[in-house]
């Protein structure tokens, strides 16, 4: 545990660690219990509304998931909060608009197979461009700072975020970039629960996210490159001694994060049919929160955290029985995050190592 159990070493505080541990447990149960009561209360009051809102939350969560993984991958390997990652995601959505709409002319009028093929090309293009872009950024501005104090790359990432936003503003202008509905638009419902329809495209977004996640997990778990990544994350020096090209591995990680952001950006445009230069700001913040919530550096944790944040946001906006309401969404998301971190400092699935937590 990273807590300060030897708080002061004075005898009268000797009992404190045990008490604190129990207090953590008690408080944790209270928090989880309160959330559970609100959820159950809402479910009883109107289960149809409850189910539809939760389904929306899952789609939202899968969006956050793709972005959160990018944060967690980079953090896991070089312990950098890559503030620019949300803006890479934004660029992914911009690339998707440029490739899909402007170049390939996707507008929903094509037949199913053609649309699917063109979509695949669009997504691959956005993924490739974002991956390359992320590597270029890494080589240009983070690599020279690898041995610098930890806060220097953090500030650099903030600066990079400003630059990426400004470049998007320059090339795409301040207004929204819109795309036509390529997926069946939101009036096409898969099923309806009472008055609430579940749009087909909400499911499609989740269905596209899942294989991407599976591929990522396979890559990190089972391939040579993935093993190298994990080795570098665990101990850079030891990995280097074992003959792993550390620089290449780090670049590969950034490429992977960029690719995920590209996929996420494309999905965003498919789902919401528009994007803007400042898209990355709030989404990046929430996705990063999700990564920390799950235990930063932990892939499963990031995914779990993303779905929790998605559900929380949807629940707070859409449920009506004793929830704070949408004027408090940010506060609710961050308050839950703070409470969880206070009672479980390493995040939900994080390992309780002294260095990380």
């Amino acid at each position, binding site marked *: 545990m990273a807590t300060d159990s030897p708080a002061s070493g004075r005898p009268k505080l000797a009992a404190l660690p045990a008490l604190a541990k129990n207090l953590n447990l008690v408080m944790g149960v209270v928090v989880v219990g309160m959330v559970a009561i609100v959820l159950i209360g809402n479910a009883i009051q109107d289960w149809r509304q409850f189910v539809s809102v939760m389904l929306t939350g899952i789609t*939202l969560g899968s969006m956050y998931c793709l972005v959160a993984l990018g944060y967690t991958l980079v953090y896991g390997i070089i312990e950098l909060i890559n503030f620019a990652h949300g803006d890479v995601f934004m660029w992914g959505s911009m690339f998707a608009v440029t490739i899909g709409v402007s170049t390939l002319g996707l507008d929903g009028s094509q037949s199913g197979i053609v649309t699917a093929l063109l979509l695949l090309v669009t997504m691959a293009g956005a993924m490739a461009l974002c991956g390359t872009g992320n590597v270029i950024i890494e080589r240009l501005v983070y690599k020279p700072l690898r041995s610098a104090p930890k806060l220097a790359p953090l500030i650099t990432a903030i600066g990079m975020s400003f630059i990426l936003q400004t470049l998007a503003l*320059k090339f795409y202008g301040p207004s*929204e970039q*819109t795309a036509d509905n390529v997926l069946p638009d*939101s009036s096409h419902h898969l099923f309806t629960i009472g008055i609430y329809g579940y749009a087909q495209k909400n499911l499609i977004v989740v269905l596209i996210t899942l294989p991407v996640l599976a591929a990522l997990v396979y890559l990190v778990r089972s391939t040579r490159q993935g093993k190298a990544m994990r080795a570098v994350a665990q101990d850079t020096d030891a990995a280097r001694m074992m003959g792993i090209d550390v620089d290449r591995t780090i670049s590969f990680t950034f490429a992977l994060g960029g690719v995920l952001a590209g996929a996420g950006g494309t999905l965003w445009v498919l789902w919401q049919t528009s994007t803007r230069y400042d898209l990355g700001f709030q989404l990046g913040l929430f996705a990063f929160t999700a990564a920390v919530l799950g235990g930063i550096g932990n892939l499963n944790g990031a995914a779990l955290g993303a779905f929790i944040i998605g559900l929380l946001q949807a629940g707070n906006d859409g449920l009506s029985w004793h929830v704070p309401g949408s004027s408090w969404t940010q506060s609710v998301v961050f308050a839950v995050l703070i409470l969880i971190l206070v009672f479980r400092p390493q995040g939900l699935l994080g390992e309780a190592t002294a260095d990380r937590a």
Partner: protein
Amino acid sequence: MKSVRSRALAAAALLAGLAFAAGCGSSSGGGSGGTGGGSGGSAGITASTCQNVVGSGKYTIASDFPLQGSSQHQTVQMNQAIQLVLEQHHWKAGDKTLQFQACDDSTAQLGSWDSATCSANANAYATTPSVIGVIGTFNSGCAELEVPVANQAPGGALAFVSPANTWPGLTQKTTSDPAEPLKYYPSGTRNYARVIPADNFQGPALALLAQKLNVKTVYIINDKQAYGAGVAHYFEDAAKKLGITVLGNDAYNTKTGTNYQALFQGIASKHPDAIMVGGLICENGGQLIKDKVAVLGANSGVKLLLPDGFTTQSTITDSGAKIAEGAYMSVGGVPVDQLTGAGSTFLSDFKAKYSPDAVDPYTPYAAAATEVLLQAIAASDGTRASVSSNLFGIQLTGTVLGDFAIDANGDTNQGSMTIYQAVGGQLGNAQVITPPKSLVETG
């Protein structure tokens, strides 16, 4: 050693990239046509937030808008409109020669209006003797700071004419703060007028429309900003007076990237006949409309009522013509696409000169504000106090917005609102609603 060199290389590459961005900037920024210097003219405002003087005259007109961040595309056009009007008047108001300076009340790091910059600007106007009037501000909050400073300026109260402030308390009594509006005028004389109807006209007009549409229950969402929450508040009051049940008045998150499906699912559980949105299209409004339609269905079913923050073609472009179809949008006077007479001439001149993507709804208001100020200056004896006192009771004919007058409070008499409907990707089905006095809430 290697790391130092690679750092220097990286820095050089970045510098080159920035120089490129700046180069592009100059080509697009050229439209402002700053001739610089103002040779022969009076000394302009030296504050660094103000751009170079354009034209050269004895008197300086300043504009005060947030030129950085999210409202930039609106404010740049407003400055262009002011310049166009000044050019068409040959930089003269009566026998007085004029020059123009565009000032910025936002900062890079905040990306929107900044209260410190607003106060600093107000001081700069007050202490620059050649400044005879200011066109601004864009945000009501900024006006709350600048007007009292200008009110106590040396040489008499300095005139402000706003094309965009809609907070009623700037000119009238309100129920929320008994000290309004007098707290903005410490010297006791008035110096502030606006050409846009305040929210207490807009809200009732939309409520009357709702009544006409046979709406029994309405749900209000607002952006929790001064403008959006204000319109929503005045709509709520009027709707209640008209016997419409208000099911709720909640805030929504305006950040780009927010999804509103869950929010509307919650609203759907209350079965409203109509949704009223207090906000702006540039605050993720397109997404809001899309998600409204996704959850509550087309606007022909559950009606969508939008104030003038949405009354622009880009509302239809951002949300999609099919989705926007049937939404109601209100505006004081006439929206840009439907201007007639002097308005349409102005619009075609404006498009010819600046070729904008789409003309913003605030652009004609900026032109009208300029015309008000020019007429007040022409009628004055050249002092600030005289310009300010000439603002009130002024009558204008044949302006961009048609004929109108400014009353003793500084409000426009264009209290009638035009309400448009999105039809086939255009603003159409215009109808005029004039809220009766009983609905226009005053303190």
